């Protein structure tokens, strides 16, 4: 985040007419290489921003399916950790960067895709055919 600060001047901000929207990075299915310390840090930063579950394999070989919602980055990997929720497990969990051997973006990215554009297109078609009470519903969770 820090590297992006000061990208805009206040004059540019005040003159902004429309905000350029975010292009979502396609991360679903990605298995980042974790060869270096930078690789680990970069991959976990993306996992923190990812709106889907990931699968972590720890160095002893344990697999954890988790939603990573926070990260704390210290000077070394040993001082850095992620916080996550596991399905069907109460409470927040914590795991050190240094304990992670493999990371896979296995879960569906809930913020990605063209579902908005797809929905507008579908809406217009359904409306034109006379359908009523058309709605975009949230994903079912139960």
């Amino acid at each position, binding site marked *: 985040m820090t590297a992006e*600060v000061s990208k805009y001047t206040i004059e540019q901000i005040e003159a902004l007419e429309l905000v350029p929207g975010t292009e979502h990075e396609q991360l679903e299915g990605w298995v980042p290489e974790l060869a270096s310390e930078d690789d680990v840090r970069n991959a976990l930063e993306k996992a923190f921003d990812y709106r889907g579950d990931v699968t972590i394999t720890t160095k002893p070989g344990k697999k954890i399916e988790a*939603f990573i919602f926070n990260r704390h980055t210290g000077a070394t990997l040993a001082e850095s950790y992620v*916080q996550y929720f596991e399905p069907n497990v109460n409470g927040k969990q914590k795991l050190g960067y240094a304990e992670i051997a493999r990371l896979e973006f296995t879960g569906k990215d809930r913020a990605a895709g063209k579902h908005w554009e797809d929905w507008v297109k579908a809406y217009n078609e359904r409306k034109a055919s006379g359908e009523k009470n058309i709605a975009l519903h949230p994903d079912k969770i139960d």
Partner: protein
Amino acid sequence: MAIPISQVWTVFSYVWKQRLKGNDRYPLVLMLEPLFRCNLACAGCGKVQYPPHVLKRMLTPEECFAAVEECGAPMVSIPGGEPLLHPQIVEIVNGLIARKKYIYLCTNALELKRRIHEFTPSKYLTFSVHLDGEREHHDYSVCREGGWDIAVEGIKEAVKRGFRVTPNSTFFDGTDPNSVRRYFDEVMALGVEGIVLSPGYSYDKAPDQHRFLGRARVRRLFRAILSNRKKSWKFNMSPLFLEFLMGDRSYECTPWGNPAYNIFGWQKPCYLLQDGYAETFKELMETTQWEEYGAASGNPKCANCMVSCGYEPTAVIDGFLSVKGLVSMAKGWFSTYEDEHALKLLSDPAPHGATTLVQIDTPDREMAAK
């Protein structure tokens, strides 16, 4: 003035207590998000895109009360997700009323009429009902035909039962100022206490990434909407914040003014941005690098933001801590903001957004560029 004197006095005395203690950074409104689950899938919302096991998680009433005590803000806004989907929302609200917190329960009102009998009217409780303009525009914004009718039924029922109600509107590119002014007439006729409004924040996780207003367009839109006001319109907001939206004032963000607490913890730095979480409110205040946020920082994530949760605290503090501010607020409450130029803006061709649904009968004309 739409806001009750007791609430104004509570906030005024709180701000002065902080000043006398020499406290430069303090919260005014706690944004308490007890869950992210929602029964709508709004185009401009980036709050609810999570895996099902995360959406099923909720704060307990005890966690909510602990956060409120820890934060100490005199007001609590309860957004989400949809708070009325929380099975213990009544217990949470009653607990906050017992603590004499002024609560704004933000709801899309799809469940309001069904659940209203569970709540008791109080000067501390306001239902802040999501209503993004006239029927067609609201339904488009929340991606649900019939959503406006249900919300209005909920508002009518809440008003009838003696609750405080404020419709809460978020506006995006393509908003027709004349339509918004007609909407003001319509909701004030429902008997609401006052209107709440804000430009949308450019959530990077929101489904629709094409309609977030930049600052120049926000000022033009809100000048057209809020100038030449009718006396029947009341706003449940700081008049100085509305002047900021109209381009009459220059403010910097107060990101710690409306801190957010949810199932992940205390959100850094604010309700809108997710740059991490703190375990405690103290940790949030002490470890967040506040200078990296707000328009002056140049942070692209803050570039378009003129949202109430960052800038209304600035306006409230500005209004309460000086005689000049108090006078400006008093003038604002009673002024109709006559403005010839703004009248001309209203006669400009109606804008249309990046996408328009069939149901919205909007002429195919471009928004005037000045």
